[in-house]
C-alpha cells in the first residue's frame, strides 16, 4: 500500500487564484468601451515532488522536483498557467477610431507545475 504522501495544506499547492482587472480602477474606463474589466486570474502555490504527478504537471517539472529533493540548491518546479484564453477589447483611440482587437493568452484558465 502506498505510504500516504504528507498532505501539504491544499491552499499552499499550485492552483489558479482569481484576479479581476477592473478598468475603472486603472482609469481606463474613459477610453475602453467594453469590457468593463476581465477575470485575468494568476497561478501561485508550491510544486512539491510528491504531488507533481497529480498537479497537471509537465514531465520536466517532475524531473526538476526530483532534482530539488536530491539537491535543494536546484529550485523547485514552478506554478505556471497551463491553459489560457483570449479577450476582445473595444476601445477608442486618439483619432476617435473605434477599435476591436483580440488579445490571446490574457485569461488564466488552468495552472500546473512546469
Amino acid at each position, binding site marked *: 500500500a502506498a505510504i500516504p504522501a504528507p498532505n501539504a495544506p491544499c491552499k499552499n499547492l499550485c492552483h489558479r487564484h482569481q484576479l479581476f482587472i477592473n478598468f475603472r480602477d486603472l482609469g481606463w474606463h474613459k477610453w475602453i468601451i*467594453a469590457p468593463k474589466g476581465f477575470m485575468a486570474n494568476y497561478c501561485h502555490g508550491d510544486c512539491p515532488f510528491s504531488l507533481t504527478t497529480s498537479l497537471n504537471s509537465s514531465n520536466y517539472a517532475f524531473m526538476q522536483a526530483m532534482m530539488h529533493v536530491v539537491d535543494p540548491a536546484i529550485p523547485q518546479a514552478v506554478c505556471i498557467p497551463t491553459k489560457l484564453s483570449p479577450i476582445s*477589447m473595444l476601445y477608442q483611440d*486618439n*483619432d476617435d477610431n473605434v*477599435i476591436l*482587437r483580440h488579445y*490571446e493568452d490574457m485569461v488564466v484558465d488552468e495552472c500546473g507545475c512546469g
Partner: protein
Amino acid sequence: FQFQERVFLQFLGLDKVPSPQKFQPVPYILKKIFHDQEAAATTGVSRDLCYVKELGVRGNILRLLPDQGFFFYSKNLPQVSSCLQKLLYFNLSSVKDKEQLTMAQLGLDLGPNTYYNLGPELELVLSLVQEPHVWGQSIPKPGKMFVLQSVLWPQGVLHFNLLDVARDWSNNPQKNLGLFLEILVKEHRDSVANFQLGDTCARLRCTLHASLLIVTLNPKQCYHSSRERR
C-alpha cells in the same frame, strides 16, 4: 504605475492614453463580433482570432474610422437637383506599416429607415478626389467616379467596398485626399408628393453619417492558418 501603463498601451498598439471627448457610436457588427468572441472564450470554444467569421475575412484588428470631411455650400449648385456635396475623409494613420488591409467598407447612413416621411428618389455619386482642394474653389475636381447609384430614401445604411482605394491610400498616404460625395434628387413627374428640395436636403444633411470599417491582419500576431502554431 506610469511605467506599466505605458507598457500596456504599447501592447495595445497605442503610444499614449486615449482621451476621447465623446464615445463614437459602436455599430451593430462590431458589438456582435465582440459578443461572439466573448461567448466563445467563456465557453472555452477556441476560435481563430485571425479570422473575422462575421465578415468572412482574415484579420485580427477591426477599426471604425469616423468621417473627418466637411460639406460644401456652393452657391451656384451645378445642377438644380443637387442636394448636397460633401468631402469624405478617413485618417488611416493608425494602421501600422506591417498590417495588411483585408477589408475596407464605406458605410453611408442616410438616416433612419422609417417610412413616415418618405423622401424623393436620390442619386448618389461617389468619386475619388485626386487633386488637392484649392481654397476658394467651390468643390474639388472630382476624379475617378466609382459609384453612381439611385436609392429610394429613406434607405438606412449603404455599404461600398473601398478595399483597393484604402490599400492605395495606406501605401501612399499622400494620395489620401478623400472622396467627393454628391447626392442629387431625382426628379419624377409622377412623384406623389412634391418634395420641398430645401427641407429634404437640410434633413439629409442632418442625418447623413459616413464611416469606414477596415480590417487588418498583423502577420506577426497571425500565423498563416495552414501552419499550426508551435
